Every structure is written in structure tokens, then in C-alpha cells.
């Protein structure tokens, strides 16, 4: 049953899609209606380039989480258009979206969201299990090596530290070799030295597998590992830094935004 869902239209074309992994055009998102409505995004356009780590920054309430939810197909825009790997997602039904997530998207959460009764290895392989695919033994081994938990594969989340849990979560996001990984404040629940390790691992995955990644964060240190940083404020992209930025440059922009 797992594999009987209709394949999204664009995935079926003969020519592999080579454009930006995610394209957002004039996206708005309004919550509620009438006078109490909140305009979380007020017209955002962007594309996420293949093989890049894009960081989305901004003060709380800037709309950065909303943007990520929209880009990942977890939420629907009020207006505008979003495509993932060339497929327009705002019109997809639930089953098609699910299939799309299976094929193209990996998630890393702030609170790890591991299944407590599964071992580290089972958690990592869960996306493949759900899709009814057989995990490639070589790839599994490499993945577990990469996240540095080969010796703890049989441990359950409760027996792992926060950092180790997030490593498992990153392994899970990479397991199906998705086109894009969305990370939602991946260091938000970790101490600073563990955060450093996790950021190192994320950067590694971009370098080693050309893993396109979008990371929402308010941690300037996290943003500093990105290839590109988008700054959001009040529902709009207000600044963009290209190439690797230094931590103090990021802080400067943030202070700038806070002062406005």
C-alpha cells in the first residue's frame, strides 16, 4: 500500500529536473480573518539552490518558521506559488504531498522527535521503513558512521544524550537521500559545545553529499556555517548574505534589524 500513491506530475517527466530545488514566488500567509488577522508573510520570493546550505534568520515573529513550513509543504500559502523539484505543491492533495515528502524531503526538528520505542538505527531507517523500501546495507553503514553512532545503533533515544539524539535525527533526515533537508532550529535545544558538533555534522552532509539544506535559526553561530543567509523581518526578506559569513557580520545584521 505504501507505494501505491500517484507520483506527483513533475517527478514523472523523462528529463531530470535541474532548476532550483525549491522556488517560492510572491508567497503570503495570513492567519485568521478580519481585523484580528495576522500577516505572517507578506510576499516572499526566493529559490533554494542545489547543494547549498541556506540559513533563514530573523527575530521571533519575523515569519521565518512560517516560511519554512510553507517551503516544506507542511502549511499552505494564502497566495503565491511554491514548487519543490519543479512540482507545484500548493495544489497537491494529502496523499501526493505525502509521497512528495517521502521522495524529496528530510526534516530535522528542534526537539528531535524520535520515536522512543525504536533503536537509533531503526529511527534512522524509519523513512525507508514507512516507504516500504529495503535499506541499502552499505548506505546504512556509511550513514551510521557519518553521524558517529555506529556503536550505539541499538540504543533507544532515552539512553542517548541530546546531541546524540539530534545526530540520529540528522541521520534519519538523510536516510532517503532527499532532495532537500529542512532543519527547524536544530541547535535550539542543545548546549553550545554540542551545538557546534551538530552544526559541523550538518555542514559535513552538505559538503560530502551536496545535500541541499534549509535551516531556520536564530543562532548566529549556526547561520555562520551557511552558504547563504536570508534575513526576515515582519514577513519580508529584508537582507541576504551570500557566501560564508563571519559570525560577527551576522550579529551586526541582526542588531541592525532589532534597532529598526
Amino acid at each position: 500500500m505504501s507505494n501505491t500513491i500517484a507520483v506527483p506530475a513533475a517527478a514523472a517527466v523523462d528529463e531530470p529536473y535541474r532548476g532550483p530545488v525549491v522556488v517560492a514566488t510572491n508567497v503570503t500567509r495570513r492567519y485568521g480573518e478580519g481585523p484580528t488577522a495576522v500577516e505572517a508573510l507578506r510576499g516572499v520570493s526566493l529559490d533554494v539552490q542545489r547543494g547549498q546550505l541556506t540559513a533563514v534568520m530573523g527575530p521571533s515573529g519575523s515569519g521565518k518558521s512560517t516560511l519554512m513550513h510553507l517551503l516544506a509543504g507542511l502549511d499552505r500559502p494564502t497566495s503565491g506559488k511554491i514548487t519543490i523539484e519543479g512540482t507545484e505543491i500548493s495544489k497537491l492533495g494529502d496523499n501526493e504531498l505525502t509521497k512528495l515528502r517521502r521522495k524529496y524531503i528530510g526534516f530535522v526538528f528542534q526537539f528531535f522527535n524520535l520515536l522512543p520505542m525504536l533503536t537509533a538505527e531503526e529511527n534512522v531507517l524509519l523513512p525507508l521503513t514507512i516507504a516500504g523500501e529495503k535499506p541499502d546495507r552499505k548506505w546504512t553503514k556509511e550513514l551510521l558512521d557519518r553521524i558517529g553512532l555506529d556503536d550505539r545503533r541499538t540504543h533507544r533515544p532515552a539512553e542517548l544524550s541530546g546531541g546524540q539524539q539530534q545526530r540520529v535525527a540528522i541521520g534519519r533526515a538523510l536516510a532517503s537521500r532527499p532532495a532537500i533537508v529542512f532543519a527547524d532550529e536544530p541547535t535550539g535545544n542543545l548546549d553550545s559545545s554540542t551545538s557546534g558538533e551538530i552544526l559541523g555534522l550538518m555542514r559535513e552532509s552538505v559538503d560530502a553529499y551536496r545535500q541541499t539544506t534549509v535551516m531556520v535559526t536564530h543562532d548566529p553561530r549556526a547561520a555562520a556555517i551557511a552558504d547563504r543567509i536570508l534575513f526576515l523581518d515582519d514577513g519580508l526578506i529584508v537582507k541576504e548574505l551570500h557566501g560564508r559569513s563571519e559570525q560577527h557580520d551576522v550579529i551586526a545584521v541582526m542588531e541592525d534589524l532589532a534597532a529598526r
Partner: protein
Amino acid sequence: MIRVTLKGLAGRRLRALLTALAIVLGVAMMSGTFVLTDTINGAFTSIFTESYKNADAVISGKTAFTNHNGNNVQAPSLPQSLVAKVKAMPDVQAAAGSVSDDRTKLVGRDGKVITSGGAPQLAFSVDPTADQRFNPLVLTAGSWPSGPHEVAIDSHVASSKHYKVGDTIGVESRGPVRHFRIAGIVKLPGVSIGGATMAVFDTATAQGLLNRVGKVDLIRVQARHGVSTPKLIRELKRVLPPSAQVRDTSAQVKEDKKGVSSFTSFIQGFLLAFAGISLFVGSFVIANTLSITVAQRVREFATLRTIGATRRQILRSVVVEALVIGILGSLAGLFLGLLLAKGLKAVFAATGFDLPSAATVFQARTIVVCLLVGTLITLFASLRPAFRATRVPPIAAVREGAELPPGRFARFAPILSAATLALGVLLLGYGVLAHGLTTVNRLSALGVGVLLLFFGVSANASRLVRPLASVLAWPATRIGGAAGALARENTMRNPKRTASTASALMIGLALVTFVAILGQGLRSSFESAVNGLFKGDYALTSQSTFAPLTISAEQAVRHARNVTVVSGIRAGSARYFDSTENLTGVDSQLAKVVQLDWKEGSAAVPAHLGRNGTFVDDKFAKKHHLHLGSRLTIETPTGHLLHLRVKGIFRLPKGGSPFAPVSISNSLFDANYINPENEMVFLNVRGGVTDENTKALEQPLKDFADAKIQTASQFKKNFEKPINKILYLLYVLLALSVVVSLFGIVNTLVLTVYERTRELGMLRAVGMTRSQTRSMIRHESIVTSLIGAALGMMVGVFLALLVTHALSSNGIVFAVPWLSLVYFVLAAIVIGIVAAIWPARRAAGLNVLEALQYE
């Protein structure tokens, strides 16, 4: 994915166990019922089969009909000469005649009948001089009885009443008590005969004792080697008189078992109904428990959805979980049922039905039905929570404190639940009040109506939780202080959850209340009926008041001092208008002791019935268009036709008639029935009820151990006893469903404590003591339980109102047994306290620091 589901289930073992408990009891009841009734049936089969051992055919007296649900039908005996005639037939290897009876009482040293409820009091004859091939009994001590002064008794009575060979014991059959020397102790090998007793005599003694001189009741026949049973039966038929019949042994066993089979299938249906109630309550508990666990797993479902799980996979995972829980719960219930069967038997024994037993019978049907029903009910109860789980959007994975989104039809919920309730009430009203419905239609309307009523009340209950809780929790806030106040708030914060937890209890309490009110109504209508009808000074009955009594007791009391009227009422069976019914015989002086309301004819009718008169009740008369002078023909068990003329029609008393639809004179009755017996005898005495008169009446009866002289008021009281007994039995059986709902409260509390770990840590951190924590949980439990009780009593009162209204023409009044209701409220409080014990301990035992860090 299934593997992931099963792992998850294993990870939540406690919750799975709690959920499964809800189904275990219902299934156990079902399995216990099957095992019990199958075992009883098996025991009777082996008793009857054993009693015809080595016989190929059995000759017995022929009756025109049998009446399994009414008065005893006594078969005519056979001439003893028939035995020799059969023996002499060339194809007969052996034949033996015997007499038997099921009303021969053993009388203990205290002069009282050794009895256990309505179990048969058996008597048999044996022939110790003949070969014992047909004798089903074995001696465990002593020897076979021989001569007019010896008896053998069964080993159960011997051991429980401490009789041994050489002792003397009383026997009362068709006359006063006679004393016999115990020559031997006997038993039927392989089975227990339950509450039945056995007295065994040699043939001549038995014939004398049972009024069967020169007669036998049964002839067991063994065919010569090589002769087939059908051939034997064909030959036997040729020599039999018209009053005799012959059957092969298995047909005879089947015939003997008929009464038993209808009894066990009644018990089976009766007990299965209670299993059904428990399962119904269990389905509420399961649905509720699963709803809570699904709500607690929102984050997990959402995460699964983000990493590619489809809605169908989520649905399947919850349903598979329920399936596993259902199968495990049903399996546990199935085996628990084996134990419960013994418990049920004990309950029956305690209420006076000690049933025979042999090896436990565990049929494949029991296994299949129990597993199937238990699993399907669990599965069905899981559907709603499972569909709710599919509504969890993937975005819930990134939201803190995400809640279960409302179902797709949530906005129709208020209308739907109101409509369910209304439909339930309408169907009930229709079923109760509509005229001219067939029984099937009426019962279906009532059944579906009650189900809908329960669903409807449960669905609407969430709106009643706040008002009910604020009233019912008032004592809690007084007693429990801050903890009580918090408890009240806790019951109100998720009204749906509180409502569905309370609803499970509501069902049990509704039924208990209904039964209590109906019982009260029955009791009072009975009371007034009995008061209105009986106007004699004394009643002479058997010790149990309801079993028939030999007419020699009536004859014995006739000449007591001061007696002016002795009026026996005989009980028998007859066939009329193509149906087997009870028949009553009355005395010419009936009008002096029983007051009937004559519609046609007068109080003089009973005195002038003569040899062809009858009087009937007005309902029967209306149904068959009978009037004064109408002709009516009835058939007696021996096949005689009695041509009668209607001489009177009386109005059926509200609360029940002491008479069968058709009554004849005692003289006609005695001429046509073998060993006639009195249902009761009424007496008038000069001077009325006095101690002296009582003594004077008891004096001639001292040799009748089973006879009992009661004053009119004692007699009336005794009439109520069986109602109370049945009420208690119903309470015990309904208690099962109440226990299931108690598990429901435990489940909800445990899951709630788990969910509020952090909050409990916070409360403890700001100064709540462990005992306050416990008291908070306890009060929450009590309030929930009281809400269930309040809802249940309302529903119960409503149902009772409807039914008493419908039965008002039978004199059933609506009378509320207030004291019982107070007990039910107390019981609800106890249920709340008991349900809270374990969850409260868990809550109080939480480590404050860990609880605060709990995520």
C-alpha cells in the same frame, strides 16, 4: 510499518494492558457462560446416559405432552407384569423394571428436609437379588438396601450431613415421614449431581412408598447379541399397552434432557446478556482510553507524517494496535472464563441452584466466538480514535502542545448527538407505548432504543459535565480544600474525556437503578395483589412456599381443632387451544379463602363446578371468545379429554393471578391426575390466628417435614422473597459491568497523571504535599464517578418510568426505592476511591525534579 506499530505497542505495555482489561471481563463472562452451560449440559448428558447403561431400549409411560416451563407432568406407571412379558421375548437378553421419583425428600435429624433450592429429590428402586447390569449407581460403603426398612443415600448428603451406614434417616414422599436404616452410601460415577439428593430402596419398598404397588415407571431392555436396536424396538412395540412407549437409549436421554436443555439455554441467554452489557461498557472504555492515548501521541503521528507516512498508514497503525490488544484481551478473557465458570456456579449455588457438574467442557465454539467477539468489539471501538489520528497534520510535529484536531464531522457533532438521543427516546417510547406490535418488533425497538439512548446520553454528557461537576464536587471542595478545588477544575478541563469516562459507569448504574425501581414496583404490586386476594387465616405450603406439597398433608390437617375451612389449590398441566398450559384445581370452599373479582358468574361458582365446570380468567376468555356456557375441551397428560363448560369468568388481579387460565374442581382434578399435589392450601380457623390455633395446626403435620403452616401475613412475606433473590442476582451480574467501568476510570486517571507530569511537578514544587496530591486525584475520581452515577440514575429512572407505565395494566407501579439509590451513590463514591488508589499513588510518587524536566 506493522513492526513499528508493534514495537510502539510493546513500548506502551502498561497502556495496552489497561486498554485490554476493559475487554477481558466481558469476554471472560461470555466464555464462562459457555463453559458453565456446556459443562452442565455435559453433566446431565452423562447422568442420563449413565442411568441407562447397558440398556438398548427404554420403556416408559406415555404422556400426551410435556410442560417444561410450567407444572410437573407425571407420566403414568406401567403394570409390573409387563416386565416378565418383555423378559420372555426371544430377542431380549435382559430386562428390569424400576420405579423412580423426583419428589422424595430426605429428612435430616432436625426434622427438616435436606434441600438445595429447586434441585430434584430423587428416589430409585434397585433389585439387589438380580444382576446389576442396569444399575447406574455404585456403592461407596455398606450394601444395597433390602427390605422395607432400608435405604441407601447419596454420598454428597452422607458426607455433608454426616450420615454413615447404620444411621437412621427420614424419607418423605407421598405421605408422612418414614424412617429408614441406611444400608449403603451410593453415587453416580464420574459426575456430581449438584443439589439433588438420592434415596434408593428395593423395588417393593419403593413401590409402596411411591404409591406404585404392582407398577413400574421404567423398563430397561438389553437386546440379545446380534439383534439390532431398531429390530428390538419394533418387536417391543407390538407387545406394549397403549399407555406405554419405547425409545432407544439415546432418544430417551434426549427426551429426559429436554427440560434441562431449555433450562440451560435460558441460563445461557440470561448470562450472555450480562456479558453483552459488560462488553458494551468495555467498548466505551476502550474507545475512551484509545482516544486519550491518540491525543497524547499527536507529536508522534505528526512526525511519522513528515517523514512520509500516509493517513492510511496512521489509521492502520492504530487499528493494528487495537487488533493486537483485542486479541490478547480476548485470549486472557477466554481463559479467565474457565475460572469464572466456577465462580458463576458458586453464585448460582449460593442463590439456591446447585447444579450438577462433571468434567469441564471447553468447546471450539467457545474459543471461536469469544475471540471473534472480543476482537471485533475492540476493533470497532478503535475506529473513531483511529480516524481522529489520521487528522493529525504533519505540521503538528513542529508545534509545541499541539492538540488533536477536531474530526471532519465535528461541526455536526452537537446535532448528531442530540439526534441520537432523540431517536433513542422515540424508539423506546414507540417500543413501550405502541399498540399491536409483534414481540420481535417491540423488542428490537426497545433494544436499539436503549443502545441509542446510552450513546446519545454519552454524546451529550460533555455539556452536562460542568454543571454536574460544580454541584457534585461541592463536598470535595469542602473536604479536600485546595486539592478538592483543583480536582473539580480538573474534571471540568476536558469535559469530553470526563463525560466518556463517566458514561461507562452510567450504563451500569442506569441498569442497576432500572432493576431496583422495577423490583420495587413488582414488590409493591405483588404485595397489594396478595393482600387483596388471600383472606384465609393460615396457609399450608411446602417449606419453600413454591414447591408443591403432597395432598396427604392437607388431609392430615383437616381434622385439627377449630378448623372450619381447608381449601387446597392443585397444580397441574393440560393442553388446550393447541398449547400446553398450567391447570388449577380448586376446592368448593375457595370463595371463603380467596377473593376473586367476578366478571361473569359469582363467588358461588367454585362451589358449583362439579364434574364438568370450569372458570377462566377474563384475558383468556377474551382471547378465545369464551362466555358463560361456552364449551372448552382440555387434554390431560394421560391423554384423556375433559369436556368442560365455562361457569365463571374472573378479572385477572393486577400483580398476577394465583390461578392458571383454566381452573377445574379438585374432585375432577384428582380423578384425572396421578399423584395430585397442592400448590398451596388455605385454612380458616375458629378464632383466627392465635398461638393456640397455630400449635393445633402444626400438631398433625409433625410427620410432614416439608409442610409449613404460615399465618396469612407470613405467607405474603414469603411471596416477596424470590423477588429479592432475583434482584440480588441481577445486582451481582450487573456489578461486572460496573467493574469494567471502574477500570475505565483507572485508565483515564493513569493517562491523565502521565499527561500532567510536568504540572504535577510544578504543584509539588510550589508546596503541594504528597497526600494533597493523592487527595486531588482521589477527588477527581470520585467526582467523575458521581457524574456517571448521576447520569446513570437519571437514565435508569427514565427507563423505569417508561416500563412501569407500559406494565401499569399489570399493576406494576412506579415506586422509587430511595434507600437503594442512596446505596448506589455510596457505591459510586467507593468506586471512585478504589479507582483512584493506584493513579494517586503514581502521582504522589513522582520525583519533583524529574517531573519538571519531563518533556
